[in-house]
């Protein structure tokens, strides 16, 4: 109790990043993630770190590229339109195999859209977002506590696999205040012999680059990268199952949609409907196993999303289309209500 503090989700990300040893933050303000930058602006100068408000999102992501090349934990954060601007830099990070953290506190789109919460960047995040064959590790928190813990986890995974990791939150997660414990373990960064830290005339110089003009070489790099992605899939897939053991209906939902859905599951259970929830925590790699298992004993899966139906495609693939997968959604900054999800459950139970 006494060790808890009251934080906004955005602040929890910032403080957790500092706890993870991040001393470089580059960003550009955009609602609803501006508190990440504001918090860093206050804290970084006091701990000898660097907070820099760049002249643009594109500049910020390339500053991240620079610090990541030097082997230090570094991050940027933005909201949907700003992430699109960072897309080129994110692809360059992937091409250069650089570990970094990118936070997306999503708002409704496309275009400038609005400032209310959304999950409509699911495709952009899980398929890469920029050009080229690549993935990011994508973590989806559904509480302020997880905003903190998954930020630390994102740094660790990024370093472990030399990949860019994304914390994919939404405006609700960024803005809501909850008690949070910041008392958690952090794995320090591993040795990074590839980093451009200066040779001191003692070793061959390192090159960090995403340019590779010999097609035979570029092919090898891509194949090696995807072999690494296979390891991530095997080792790092995360999800939560809630009341799935005897479930006849399954809800698939992440982030704020999972919070809303849990309320609906509890209400449906009170009415005797056997329904459970599968909450992907990693969106890439996508947790296929629990959906494959669920498809053996549920008669329907309902994908609850704040978009026009994006994760539903992964749910269908994972459940091998053995059971109907339906969509329950709101878009444009609207959030499904527990009643709306309950209605979908009751309809499915008939």
């Amino acid at each position: 109790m006494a060790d808890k503090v009251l934080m906004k989700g955005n602040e929890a990300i910032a403080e957790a990043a500092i706890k993870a040893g991040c001393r470089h933050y580059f960003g550009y303000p955009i609602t609803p993630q501006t508190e990440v930058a504001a918090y860093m602006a206050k804290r970084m100068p006091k701990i000898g770190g660097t907070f820099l408000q760049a002249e643009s999102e594109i500049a910020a992501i390339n500053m991240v590229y620079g610090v990541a090349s030097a082997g230090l934990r570094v991050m940027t954060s933005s909201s949907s339109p700003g992430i699109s601007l960072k897309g080129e830099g994110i692809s360059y990070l992937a091409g250069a195999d650089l570990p970094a953290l990118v936070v997306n506190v999503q708002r409704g789109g496309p275009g400038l859209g609005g400032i209310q919460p959304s999950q409509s960047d699911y495709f952009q995040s899980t398929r890469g977002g920029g050009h080229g064959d690549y993935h990011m590790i994508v973590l989806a928190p559904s509480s302020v506590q997880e905003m903190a813990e998954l930020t630390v986890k994102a740094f660790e995974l990024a370093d472990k696999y030399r990949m860019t990791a994304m914390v994919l939150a939404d405006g609700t997660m960024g803005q809501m205040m909850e008690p949070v414990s910041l008392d958690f373990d952090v794995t320090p960064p591993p040795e990074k012999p590839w980093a451009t830290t200066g040779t001191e005339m003692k070793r061959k110089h390192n090159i960090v680059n995403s340019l590779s003009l010999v097609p035979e070489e570029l092919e090898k790099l891509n194949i090696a990268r995807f072999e690494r992605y296979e390891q991530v899939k095997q080792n790092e897939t995360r999800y939560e199952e809630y009341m799935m053991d005897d479930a006849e209906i399954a809800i698939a939902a992440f982030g704020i949609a999972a919070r809303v859905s849990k309320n609906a599951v509890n209400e449906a259970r009170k009415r005797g409907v056997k329904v459970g929830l599968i909450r992907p925590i990693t969106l890439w790699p996508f947790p296929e196993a629990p959906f494959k298992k669920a498809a053996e004993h549920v008669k329907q899966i309902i994908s609850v999303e704040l978009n026009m139906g994006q994760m539903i495609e992964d749910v269908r693939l994972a459940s091998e289309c053995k059971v109907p997968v339906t969509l329950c959604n709101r878009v444009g900054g609207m959030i499904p209500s527990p009643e709306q999800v309950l209605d979908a459950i009751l309809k499915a139970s008939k």
Partner: protein
Amino acid sequence: MKRITLILGHYGSGKTNIAVNLALSYRKEREHVAIADLDIVNPYFRTKDSLDLLNENGIRLIVSDYANTNIDIPALPQDMYAVTDDKSLTCILDIGGDDRGALVLGRLRPEILKENDYEMLLVINKYRPLTADAPATLEVMQEIEAAANMRFTGIINNSNLGRETTAEAVLASLPYAEEVSKLTSLPIVMTTVKEEIAPELMGKVENLFPLALQKNFIESKIN
């Protein structure tokens, strides 16, 4: 009670909830009560969330047409000068967080100082990480005073952990509030607590002020 009560403090310290509750309490004694929402920092969680409650209780809300509309601009209400022009109003000013929010007082300051019938209250919360101890809280206070170019007259101890707030957590915040009071030479004018735990704290905390917490759009969807 002064004619004007200014509520300022760190971002997320609970200013809006306190402003709404204070207005309801002032309304019991005064005919013409208004809240002026002068938040130029945060487009969310505004006094407008409580519009129905304020209307029902005959409390005037002076707020930008753009608050809670998703138009993300730091707009001020067109009728904000009612605060200083209409002396029949008892006004509570809900100011945006930190020094950035306090900048808005530049416009009203000369008239408020001239009339000199105001109190300016600093809302503090021990459980917010950037005001977790007295020296850090003093720093935030000084930044706000510098931006507002006005001096605080008192402190509201609103130390809380949201829905996990217990009577023990409030009691544990009292030495912190005392220390802030000593360091700033400001009196603690009240300790605010959510109304559910107020009975446990009666007689144990001076100037206890129970708050009926206003739900925002997020809290209406999730537990």
